């Protein structure tokens, strides 16, 4: 084979690669454009947002919108509420789910199959159905408009996923470890806390992030069950801003950045565990 044919093949090969790369870049651009626009609008003066034709990058940069929202009492309180509720939801559902997952993974008992189905099925309940009884029960129990009420609701949303994911992580720990710890005189709870828990750290991180994100982003229950200024969540604050007649767009975009940035940062740092948890977890492929 002479050299010209080889170089022709090579050129064709490079051409395909270049096309592929351009396609990738275009796709990334299309998918990230809305997020880029959000950031871009949050750092420009208000009169720059609706200029025609809209410049993709602002002509003038200003952090005024951020200054205003970060000194706004409503934003501070709702950010605190969001962090508080999300963190406690994460801790609560990790605690209950890890104990339950250990039981599901390690023991055989009557009704285990039905229990697994039940846990799976609870993941499938349309949330709107639960709003009616939650609203009624919480008003009766005095949990209405309390952060604790939201935490209870969110734990019940995240619990099925966390339990099933952690079960699959526990299943990957060899049984012989439990048996040897039992021979050494460890109680079942000791085995759980001292031997198995440290081994599924990656699973805990993955499900923890999932629970945190779910609680952070949930809107329907937050807008129904925590309505006063004192208990409002960040997403509800943003939602209430969208509904207003005249919207201050730069401030709205700054607060959406505020609501998104922590999640993106957490995700970037914990990406590997999170991916493994999601793909190996309850959605069982």
């Amino acid at each position, binding site marked *: 084979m002479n050299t010209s044919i080889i170089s022709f093949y090579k050129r064709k090969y490079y051409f395909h690669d270049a096309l592929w790369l351009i396609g990738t870049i275009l796709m990334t651009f299309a998918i990230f454009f809305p997020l880029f626009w959000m950031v871009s609008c949050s750092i420009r003066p208000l009169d720059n947002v609706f200029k025609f034709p809209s410049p993709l990058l602002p002509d003038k940069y200003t952090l005024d919108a951020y200054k205003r929202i970060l000194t706004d009492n409503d934003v501070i309180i709702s950010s605190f509420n969001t962090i508080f509720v999300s963190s406690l939801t994460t801790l609560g559902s990790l605690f209950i789910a890890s104990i339950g997952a250990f039981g599901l993974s390690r023991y055989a008992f009557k009704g285990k199959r039905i*229990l697994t189905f039940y846990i799976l*099925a609870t993941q499938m309940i*349309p949330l709107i159905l639960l709003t009616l009884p939650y609203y009624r029960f919480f008003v009766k129990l005095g949990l209405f408009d309390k952060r604790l009420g939201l935490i209870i609701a969110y734990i019940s949303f995240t619990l099925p996923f966390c339990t099933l994911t952690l079960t699959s992580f526990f299943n990957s720990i060899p049984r012989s470890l439990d048996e040897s710890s*039992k021979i050494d005189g460890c109680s079942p709870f000791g085995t759980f806390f001292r031997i198995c828990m440290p081994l599924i750290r990656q699973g805990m991180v993955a499900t923890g992030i999932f629970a945190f994100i779910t609680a952070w982003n949930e809107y329907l229950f937050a807008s129904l069950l925590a309505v006063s200024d004192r208990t409002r969540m960040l997403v509800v604050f943003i939602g209430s801003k969208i509904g207003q007649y005249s919207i201050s767009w730069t401030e709205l975009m700054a607060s959406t950045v505020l609501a998104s940035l922590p999640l993106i940062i957490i995700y970037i740092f914990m990406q590997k565990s999170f991916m493994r948890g999601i793909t190996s977890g309850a959605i*069982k*492929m």
Partner: protein
Amino acid sequence: MIVGERFVRSGFYFLLPLLIFLILTTLLPLMYVVIMSFFRNYLPEKNISFIFLNNFVTIFKDQEFIKSILQTLKYVFSCTILHLSLALCLAVYFDKHKGIKGTISYSMRGILIIPWLLSWTVAASIFQLILNPTGLINGYLKTLGLIAEPIPWLGSIQYAMVWIIIITVWKAFPFFFMLVYAAFMTVPNELYESAEIDGASNITKFWRITFPMISQTVMTLTMLDIIWLLRQYEIIALTTGGGPLGLTTTLTIKIYRTAFEKFKFGLASSQGVVVLIIASMISFIYIRLYVRREEVI
């Protein structure tokens, strides 16, 4: 079971907190909804009265309820089809490359997931801004001379549902892409190699090797997607609010309205039971798929 009676019983103790919590937070409320669907329960009235199936008769006589079922079907099926076909296309696009392309493909999986992590509220605000009558899309279309007057996209009869579907697809397809891509990675390379020796084309390889290997995943994801879309509330409530003329009022929005704007809890419960029946049928298929997988593993 490991050994002995003691361990078996403690196995149940481990599950006790989970069980109690789930019964209190899901089973009990669900039973409440089902029971309430047989009652007249209008919030301003003090008393509730048993009216058996009258609520169901009322909702099925309600034209708007029937319409909302149709809107839901339209929304759920368009989104599901788009989610999965986009996810499959992207997964094929990024599948099994070597060298730099492989590295880029792999990191794309990590990056593209970001829209899925964010809140629906965030997605709603961004698109409210972009689709605003004086916003980006209208601005560019006008500059290009494609439209004479700005179109209020989210308030227009033709486009409101289309945009809701676009926003949903944009926000949620990365998740499906990630899982389909992960499934692609599990197909052993030897299969492709031997197919190549036999002279199979890329299309044949996809339909004869890749697709059969991942069809289970795709089915499971379809069921999951349908369930998630059935419960979708945020994006519609925060963009169109169910309008214009109720053309984006899905079942979820309809139930919310009946319960929390008209305060007819009994009626809303019976509408909820209809959704529950639909969701249960789909969940049943999902659980069957899940169990079959479990047994193989």
